């Protein structure tokens, strides 16, 4: 029996510019009704690949070679007008950021209606009915009301569902999903994935899903392809690839994902992805590969079959990798209490010339202590108040009630509400690391200037010794002394975050406040940062409060975990106990929503 004709065929696709390649000879096919996932970190070219499936190129990129065919029809090299009849009707996109992908000045209903207007022959009444029907199918409450709203009036989850409805309107045969759950809360993400799985079953559409999150792909896809530096390095059935990854990159990638069930620090991948302009001859991954041989540097391996349905691009596929064991965190010595938070409450009032809004409580009656040298994890969804607690401890948010007490080596004192009112010794003891390293480093300062500020302010280090001391700090975060003279723009995201960590340690603090510091980083880079924080904190006997929305990440690094909901702590326990035997129903639902990769 012959297999049905593939819906989508990509053959040796080459996309890039004059001197660089973003998508480098990628090929795959999509059978009707099949769901294919494309995994990769930033810079892998996966988003560009997805857009090219619709014949769309981003500014500055060109189609250089290869082809994309939908039902046998070529998609590359066509004008917008020629592709207009296919786009939205046969193949539709669910965008990464639905809030910006919707016209801000037209109502939701009108934009879904637009797809029907362009692609179907229905009259106005029939279209209106269809719109309501679609909004109902994506499980939006009160479809009529939602259709009348504007994009900015909906929540993140609602707007993503509206985007799904818009994509389904044309009754496509292939659905493209670009990071479908980015920026969504864990529970919202879980509900959305349920919806997508259900829709796929009913509508029998083919799917191509791009995500950096293997957990998401595990829920949605039958087959998976892994991309690295523009090339597809492994392709095969999802369960197989994740359970027994063949390519060293896939193995390393899977090993760098934190596991909720076992805990322990994930293993990072040494080095960083190659710049698109300086692609090494031979295998892209060779500089970072643990199994590298001489031949790997000169010869670029092609995707070749290793077993049924499973392809790998490696000269030496390792089909029996060692089982992934995450390094367990070293037990923290039971230390003296360092920070006591008692009955903390914070609310935000609106500022302006006529401030008359009632203040909203963001944090309500929160109490906990942090012991010297321990890592306390704060987990919660957006709006739970976790970042606000850090802000209050750092002196950025003024509490409306409660007390924060710092017990340093020589004296115990209550922390003043504002950072500007605190003595230098207190400011030195508590250091804050921010989420986004692009924003937390002054783009006009060199790395040495950035490190010099705390060294001079807290350590009174004389100018002559600054360079040496700064180089020491950098070596602790595993960066070379050459980085001292670079500007932040010349460093990668992971390197910038390391500089931010070095800057925090330059003050010789007692307590480190980490505000979603790995959320903006790739998974493999995240693993490196987690390992760094853990090792440095143990080495210097520094306590840390680690805030994240990702329970698996917190489990990897924290000794104790506090779960926050709507500004209150609902449960606080050791990491192991909390994850194994949760008490509070909210904690249980959070644990259920975490996407684990089947192994």
């Amino acid at each position, binding site marked *: 029996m012959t297999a049905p004709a593939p819906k989508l065929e990509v053959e040796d696709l080459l996309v890039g510019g004059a001197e660089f390649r973003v998508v480098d000879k990628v090929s795959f096919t999509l059978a009707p009704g099949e769901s294919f996932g494309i995994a990769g970190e930033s810079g892998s070219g996966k988003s560009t690949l997805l857009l090219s499936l*619709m014949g*769309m190129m981003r*500014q500055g990129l060109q189609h250089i070679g290869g082809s994309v065919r939908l039902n046998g029809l070529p998609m590359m090299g066509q004008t*917008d*007008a020629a*592709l*207009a*009849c*296919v*786009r*939205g*009707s046969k193949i*539709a*996109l669910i*965008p990464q*950021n639905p809030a*910006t*992908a*919707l*016209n*801000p*000045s*037209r109502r939701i209903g009108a934009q879904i209606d*637009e*797809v029907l207007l*362009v*692609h179907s022959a229905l009259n106005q009444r029939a279209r209106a009915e269809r719109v309501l029907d679609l909004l109902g199918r994506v499980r939006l409450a009160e479809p009529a009301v939602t259709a009348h709203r*504007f994009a*900015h*009036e909906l929540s993140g989850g609602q707007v993503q569902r509206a985007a799904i409805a*818009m994509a389904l309107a*044309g009754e496509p045969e292939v659905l493209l999903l670009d990071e479908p759950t980015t920026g969504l809360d864990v529970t919202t993400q879980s509900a959305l994935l349920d919806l997508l799985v259900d829709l796929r079953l009913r509508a029998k559409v083919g799917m191509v899903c791009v995500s950096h999150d293997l957990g998401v792909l595990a829920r949605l896809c039958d087959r998976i392809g892994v991309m690295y530096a523009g090339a597809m390095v492994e392709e095969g059935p999802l369960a197989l690839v994740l359970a027994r990854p063949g390519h060293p990159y896939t193995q390393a990638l899977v090993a760098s994902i934190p596991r909720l069930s076992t805990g322990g620090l994930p293993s990072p991948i040494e080095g960083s992805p190659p710049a698109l302009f300086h692609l090494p001859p031979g295998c892209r991954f060779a500089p970072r590969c643990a199994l590298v041989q001489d031949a790997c540097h000169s010869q670029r391996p092609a995707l070749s079959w290793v077993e049924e349905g499973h392809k790998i691009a490696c000269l030496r596929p390792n089909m029996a990798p060692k089982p992934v064991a995450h390094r367990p965190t070293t037990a923290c010595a039971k230390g003296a209490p360092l920070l006591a938070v008692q009955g903390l409450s914070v609310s935000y009032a609106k500022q302006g*010339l*006529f401030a008359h809004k009632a203040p909203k409580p963001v944090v309500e009656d929160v109490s906990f202590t942090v012991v010297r040298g321990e890592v306390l994890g704060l987990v919660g969804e957006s709006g739970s108040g976790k970042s606000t607690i850090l802000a209050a401890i750092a002196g950025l948010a003024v509490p409306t009630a409660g007390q924060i007490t710092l017990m340093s080596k020589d004296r115990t004192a209550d922390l003043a509400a504002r950072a500007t009112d605190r003595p230098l010794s207190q400011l030195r003891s508590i250091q804050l690391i921010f989420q986004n390293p692009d924003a937390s480093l002054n783009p006009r300062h060199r790395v040495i200037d950035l490190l010099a500020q705390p060294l001079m302010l807290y350590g009174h280090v004389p100018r002559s010794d600054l360079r040496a001391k700064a180089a020491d700090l950098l070596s602790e975060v595993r960066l070379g002394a050459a980085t001292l003279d670079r500007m932040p723009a010349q460093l990668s995201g992971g390197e910038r975050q390391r500089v931010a960590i070095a800057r925090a340690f330059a003050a010789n603090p007692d307590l480190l406040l980490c505000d979603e510091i790995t959320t903006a980083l790739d998974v493999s880079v995240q693993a490196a940062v987690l390992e760094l924080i853990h090792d440095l904190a143990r080495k210097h006997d520094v306590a840390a409060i680690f805030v994240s929305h990702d329970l698996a990440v917190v489990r990897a690094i924290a000794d104790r975990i506090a779960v926050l909901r709507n500004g209150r702590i609902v449960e606080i326990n050791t990491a192991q106990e909390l994850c194994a035997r949760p008490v509070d129903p909210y904690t249980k639902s959070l644990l259920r929503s975490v996407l684990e990769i089947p192994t």
Partner: protein
Amino acid sequence: MVAVLLERIGLALVTMVIIAVVVFFALDLMPGDACSVTLERGASDSMLAACHARLGLDQPPLWRFITWAGDFLRGDLGISMQRERPIAEIVGWRLRNTLILAGVTSVIGIPLALGLGVLAGLNPDGPLDMAISGVAIFAMTVPEFISGTLMILLFSVVLGWAAGVVTIGYKAPAFELVKASILPAATLIFILAAHILRMVRASVIEVMQSDFVQMARLKGASRRRIIWHHVVPNALLPAISIIGLTMAWLLGGVVIVESVFNFPGLGRLAVDAVADQDLPLVQAIALLFGFIYVLTNLGADLLALTLNPRLRARRR
């Protein structure tokens, strides 16, 4: 929505109060006052004192301000020193004339600018854009008095199509004034349209790059649909607030253009008043201009509110 409306109106009123305070006290702080500049140098102290008493300048500043403001609101703008007539009388006709000039300029200039801006932005760096932008840049760099003078040179001296300088009196019927305002309005339109056009063009270019326009392409919408339903509405919305700001420029430009063309409006009156050092008159005109600007801006703000759904909800 009502709350936002009231807030805007409230802010406008506050602004007007601040303008009144500044205009009044700016002159107060300077050496000399209405009396000392009008009376001859070397006037005796008793003459000065008598003049002060007559004009009420010997009262404490705050009281003077309140009476002055109160009078203004009742329509009594004070007495012109030079012409010795109530200012309200002098200003009334000329206000009408200036409003006619500003009106003609806006009614023709704004739609023209919006249209040209959109055309230029749809094909950036294309031949149409180069032509439009080139002329716009030229218009923005050349000051009003030069373009006005060139207009007279071109249309009156060289071509002889229109009389260069306006000769009708300030009380002439409105229709005559509209005819007379053609060349001055053309000068103002030249520059006003250039400013607005550049902003609209930039807005169009930005919107063309936005995510939702790309999404519309991916939905299979035709280019025409994309332009009319997605690009134009979103590109023009911010233009409305810009139009409000350009009005301030327009009011300033009116002063110069009226002088170039001898148009009998508020601007030319102001210039004459300055030459005569007629302080109460200059003050009154400054205040009027400020109020006109605030009201126009308020109008633009309210228009933006009705058209832009995002502004209606109070910022969360």
